[in-house]
């Protein structure tokens, strides 16, 4: 039996893609395997680790808990869309690098997208607010110490207008 498929358009990082997928295709798989945007990672596929977080109309969402067919008519931003137009690192990316906020880098895309939305909402987080912001994402390498620092640094970079 052939699986029924659906034709849809996904707008990712400002580019519209057309694809044909079965209804059960996870958004995370569609991004990674159909569109080749492998920056979005899957660490659990049950919505707990946050590695697969992407921005859906600017809000962080777990792409392993969404079907691709339900992601039409929205703007999706993945980690690949966080750099500046000129190719230089965006403030959260830059802050992670400066603060050693990543080791293996597997959880990192989910943190970067989550924090991008977080400092949009709260442009000047305290350390406690920074912790709150990332409290739904798992990292097995860093012990979070430097990720908390990176949140604060990212807010600073963004405010400094490093965010062109």
């Amino acid at each position, binding site marked *: *039996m*052939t*699986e029924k498929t659906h034709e849809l358009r996904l707008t990712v990082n400002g580019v519209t893609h057309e694809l044909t997928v*079965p209804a*059960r*295709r996870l958004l995370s798989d569609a991004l*990674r*395997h159909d569109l*080749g*945007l*492998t*920056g*979005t*990672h899957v*660490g*659990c*596929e*049950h919505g*707990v*680790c946050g*590695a697969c977080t992407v921005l859906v109309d600017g809000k962080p969402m777990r792409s392993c808990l969404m079907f691709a067919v339900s992601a039409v008519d929205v703007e999706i931003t*993945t*980690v*690949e869309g*966080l*750099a500046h137009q000129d190719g230089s*690192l965006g403030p959260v*990316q830059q802050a*992670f*690098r*400066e603060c*050693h906020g*990543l*080791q*293996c*880098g*597997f*959880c*990192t*895309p989910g943190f*970067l997208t989550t924090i991008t939305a977080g400092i949009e909402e709260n442009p000047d987080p305290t*350390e406690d607010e920074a*912790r709150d912001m*990332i*409290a*739904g*994402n*798992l*990292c*097995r*390498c*860093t*012990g*979070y*110490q*430097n*990720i*908390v620092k990176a949140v604060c640094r990212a807010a600073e970079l963004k405010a400094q207008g490093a965010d062109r």
Partner: protein
Amino acid sequence: MTTKLMGTKVQRVEDDRLVRGTGRYVDDVAPDALHVAVLRSPHAHARILSIDVEAVLDIEGVHAVWTYEDLDGAMAEPLPLLIPHPTLTHGRTQYALAKDEVNYVGEAIAMVVADNRYLAEDALASIVVDYELLPAVVGIETARAAERLVHDDVPGNVAARMEQSNGDAAAAIAAAPHTLSLDLAIERSACMPMEGRGVVAKWDADNGRLQVWSSTQTSTGVRAAVAAKLGLDLLKVDVITPDVGGGFGVKINHPWPEEVLVPLAAMRLGRPVKFTEDRREHFISSAHERAQLHHVEVGFDDDGRVLGLDVRFWHDHGAYTPYGLIVPIITSTQLLGPYKPGAYHVQFDSLYTNTVIVTPYRGAGRPQGCFVMERTMDAIAASLGKDRAEVRAVNFIQPDEFPYDHGLIFQDGRELEYDSGDYPAMLTKIKDLVGWDEFEQFRAEMAGQGRRVGIGLACYVEGTGVGPYEGAHVHIETSGKVKVATGLTSQGQGHQTAFAQIVADELGVRFEDVEVTTGDTRRMPYAVGTFASRAAVMSGSAIHKAAKKAKEKALRIAAEALEADVEDLEIADGVVSVRGTDASIPLGTVAVLSNPLRYAFDEASKAATQFSVGDPGKPPVAEGDEPGLEGKDFYSPPRSTFASGMHAVIVETDPDTCEIKILKYAVVHDCGHLINPMIVEGQIHGGVAQGVGGALYERMAYDESGQLLNASFMDFLMPYVTEVPTSIDIDHLETPSPLNPLGIKGAGEAGVIPGSAAFAAAIEDAERLSITAMPISPSELFALRQAASTNAGETP
């Protein structure tokens, strides 16, 4: 002179690609690959009566379905027992696909190859297996009781019994003025890297060559295993380890069933094939660690000096023993920590259970050993009414006693001989850092507010940088860029950065011009792997030596070109110059001169053609020399280096809810010279977080039938940011290792080792209750309080 990078916080070169989402993990390669799904045993112990795969073949999109029946040759033999040991008398390993019997929930039984993972998983549902259920052996007590057996031919469920001693511990204990005995337990946990296992294979029929990508800690190990299993010449197999999403030990085991099945499928089907483990599979079909029960007998004098120590313990290694006895051997030797008991005897049994196999998890048996030794020190202090730090101090090996030989054999088959360290200095530092001497005042203040606090301390020594060897290749291109390769793999330790620092320093080139490749057998086919905090020591030293060789050659050629003495030359920013003059030559040009050419293909190479260089009276490449500006070398130390550390933690326990809160966490750490303090501190942070997980949250909840009840991130509680200390105070001590040229010792595992020991001590101190089993949850603490108050005849 270029400023030295060794010891400085250089930002990582890995990060740019990783923060852009352009890293390459194994699931990111070969987008056109077919996907594998594996049928895994739902039972902990069963005989397989029949497997019916008929229905699968009709499913559209399915390319193959295989069971044990479809394997032949070496593939039909059990997987290798990687680390044999004379005492491992009853070692057993599983088959790539189960033959007749399954011994844990998760054991591979059949595999399907399909167009994508969705279809492959659908197909698994059509396989019908008929099982005869057998009683499961779960937990150390059940295994030890041996009323049921995991393997019929392994009496008592005992794979190995090992014993070591130094002096007559029993006699020393019998003669000691004071004695104590303790029973101590640690539960199962697991590495849980955020990326699970994964393997991709492509068979290149045109070249008769197999290319394998694996998320492994040893690409050379996987290569050898794949070649042996598939009957291929080693030189026909390339294994590449791309970016790896964490390892922490589990990925050192090899080959996993999928690591040989996927290459086999790629060869048989002539298509690229991929297996990407999902999270549930990682819980039930990779590896766990830590579960051990220990019984301690100790004899000591009035000062708390240990005169005799006798430790008997039982190690749960799961259903099979592919990784041998490494974990319990490490516990049995490393539990000695910084101390020198008068006499020591240790004996362990390594036991089969119907659960997932065991391979090292960061710390590898040391967290258990440290827990045992440090609980013993605390118990001695308590029984003598002495300060816990003081009791430790009287037992320390002193700085003038190095090298210190414990009279035991370590995990690498070499003497357990510590190279260097300064434990008294370290104790002073940790006491200052945590505020040990001021704590009673703090406790009183807190008590005044109705708050209950406690402080704990734990010390450890970690054998790092075990052999046998690592190698490195340093190649200077005619552009002046330096390409470095070492064979061990990286899982987030920043090797590309740290190793480039070493090369930049040694060669005198710009850091930006150095590019390091790890874990690619095409670039460095001789290597061992990344485990036991050995990468910096082993590959770091090999790279240093290889860079030195390349430098010697560069200087020799440059001296000829500049008509100067080698002694008068220096290299800075990639340019060789004669000290105090203007005469200079870029390294790239030296590389051109190193390779006499017949053909010119660009401007640079014109300078090296046969009519431009060389003395016509001599052979273009001198006897014993080689063309090219390269250096290759290996580092193989006589024995391990020994790093050390001490952690102290202050906790607060809630008088009502039993919640355990971390108020302060302090670390003093000695890994010899630091290559990159930023990376070392990051390693400590991560280790401490895993230590917190191991002490307070993480355990594998098996029921008595062998089902793992918490096989998801929803139920296996790894620390989020909300569970780790809000800050970790770190101080370093640097006692260089005399065993390697850079004086380094390795730092990867350190942060996790004393976690359970330190927390147990702090909780005990807060609660005045004896803590003998970790991890401990609030409900377990509540139960301990209840039991204590019942015993005391009080109302709770």
